[in-house]
């Protein structure tokens, strides 16, 4: 073995990382463009460019009014929303896997999604019964944050703030809240469909207002996580070893738990529970490319965005009734995950 073997390998890894990052970015852009053109109304690529250029430079695009409206008010916000939600779920999945020291954790492990579902279903039910309008997104956000607060409270009482305490607290809170959701379903009576559809997770009818809720939080928290990603790596060695390497494990875990949960909370509140993206994306990137969170988080972000955008495009196109994308991701993601898992076992 020559002396520069290590340097060479490190260089190859770096090139691999940058090329995968670039490929994902370009693919994301192309798939996004194709996705805007596809749907019930046929739209050409040049129309899309015209509309975007017009919006950016503030000029009046030379496009028919109805096409402009479909592109700008319906398809673009939905596609961009799917990008950020895919990104958010994948990033928070990577964060949860690292802080819970379990490669099979996902953004929903500690019950944030159940909290949001409870909040949303409570709002839906209350709105139905009293004929008022309390926005479901706000109710879901409140539900998610209250859940996070309670989980942290229970986990802290359990002595040290370690991963199994957090998971146990999450399981307890989550099961209580899912009974709460069932109770809301009973109260909703024959209007139970609204709750069921909300929980299934769908991106239909998402507008710019949803993008504004999701995008800044996902982007800012992702960037912060990337900056402190090394401490996430160190945590993989176990709490004690991480502590003796200078990582304040309790504090880091608390901060990352909050960051991951906030991302999850906004994603779930906007679009319901979309399964498997948060589990499968970081897992695959780790398996294929690297376990280093510094690289894993950005790659997961892009891959998650690509995955959810593609899935949502299919969900849009498959039937006129629109299958909720949450069903699609789990339906396809589940078996695919089993396949990867089996292959990994055989390969050692």
């Amino acid at each position, binding site marked *: 073995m020559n002396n520069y073997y290590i340097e060479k390998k490190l260089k190859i890894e770096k090139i691999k990382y940058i090329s995968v990052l670039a490929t994902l970015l370009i693919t994301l852009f192309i798939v996004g463009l194709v996705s805007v053109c596809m749907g019930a109304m046929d739209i050409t690529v040049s129309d899309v460019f015209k509309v975007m250029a017009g919006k950016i430079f503030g000029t009046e695009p030379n496009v028919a009014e109805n096409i402009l409206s479909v592109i700008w008010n319906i398809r673009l916000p939905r596609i961009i929303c799917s990008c950020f939600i895919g990104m958010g779920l994948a990033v928070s999945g990577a964060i949860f896997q690292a802080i819970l020291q379990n490669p099979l954790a996902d953004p929903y492990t500690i019950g944030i999604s159940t909290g949001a579902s409870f909040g949303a279903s409570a709002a839906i039910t209350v709105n139905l019964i009293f004929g008022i309008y309390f926005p479901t997104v706000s109710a879901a956000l409140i539900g998610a944050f209250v859940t996070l607060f309670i989980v942290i409270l229970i986990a802290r009482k359990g002595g040290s703030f370690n991963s199994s305490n957090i998971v146990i607290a999450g399981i307890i809170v989550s099961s209580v809240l899912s009974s709460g959701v069932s109770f809301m379903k009973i109260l909703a009576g024959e209007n139970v469909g609204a709750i069921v559809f909300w929980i299934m997770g769908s991106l239909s009818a998402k507008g710019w207002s949803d993008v504004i809720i999701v995008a800044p939080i996902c982007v800012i928290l992702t960037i912060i996580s990337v900056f402190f990603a090394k401490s996430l790596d160190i945590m993989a060695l*176990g709490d*004690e070893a991480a502590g003796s390497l200078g990582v304040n494990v309790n504090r880091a875990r608390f901060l990352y738990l909050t960051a991951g949960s906030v991302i999850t909370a906004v994603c779930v509140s906007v679009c319901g529970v979309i399964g498997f993206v948060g589990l499968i994306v970081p897992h695959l990137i780790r398996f294929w490319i690297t*376990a280093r969170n510094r690289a894993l988080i950005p790659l997961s972000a892009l891959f998650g965005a690509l995955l959810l955008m593609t899935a949502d495009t299919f969900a849009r196109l498959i039937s006129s009734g629109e299958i909720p994308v949450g069903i699609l991701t789990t339906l396809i993601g589940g078996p695919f995950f089993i396949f990867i898992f089996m292959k990994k076992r055989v390969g050692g």
Partner: protein
Amino acid sequence: METILKVENLFFGYKKEPFLKNICFEATRGEMISVIGENGSGKSTLIKVINGNLKSYDGKIIYNGENLKKVSYLRRAREISMLYQNCECDFPFSCFEIVSMGLYPHKGNLNGLNKDDIDFIKSIMTMTETIEYAHKSINSISGGQKQKVFIARALSQKPKLLFLDEAASGLDISSRIKMTEIILRECKNNGVTVINISHDINLAFEKSDKILALKNGEVYSFGKPKDLLNKDFFREVFNVEVKIDFNKKYFRIIT
């Protein structure tokens, strides 16, 4: 000789019952101390207390003339390193990445590895013979190889004080001897003080400067190996009858 670690009247207990009772000992620079004793005699607990993993103790731990409680988190990480029993890592980091994690307290979150760091890690991995599988995933190598990677990780932290909790467990005989030699070289050449929990009594008595024998959470004896090497010692500490085979140069403890 410069005292690097001084433990005075250390008490520690889970719940109310004291588990470690009135522990006193001293370690000087470049010294290798082996901690021996039965399972459950408090060896691992003792070094976890000294390393700062277990905080609510009574008594004094003086590190380099300062109360260890006053030494900052970061400085402690830069100067004290520990290899824990049964290290595991569920994530597929490469062995190189695992070893380079030892530089974390020196580099922080934002700085990447420069050429000197890479050379340093290479030298540690060459020394510990882990360089051959530097780019393999930590999950894909054998238990003994993994253990060597974690030893390399502990050394790459550039410690002044190194705690080893059964570092040689799972290693074959040649690796075991080699690891002991590497660690001894760190002691003698770089002035690292090593406190080593060991179940390999022969190796401990042969290589250590001092032996700290624990029994039921108390120090049974602390001193040079040759002063402790007698049948009564083993009867008291381990409840076993042994035969000690003295040769001209060697001795062997036969149970």
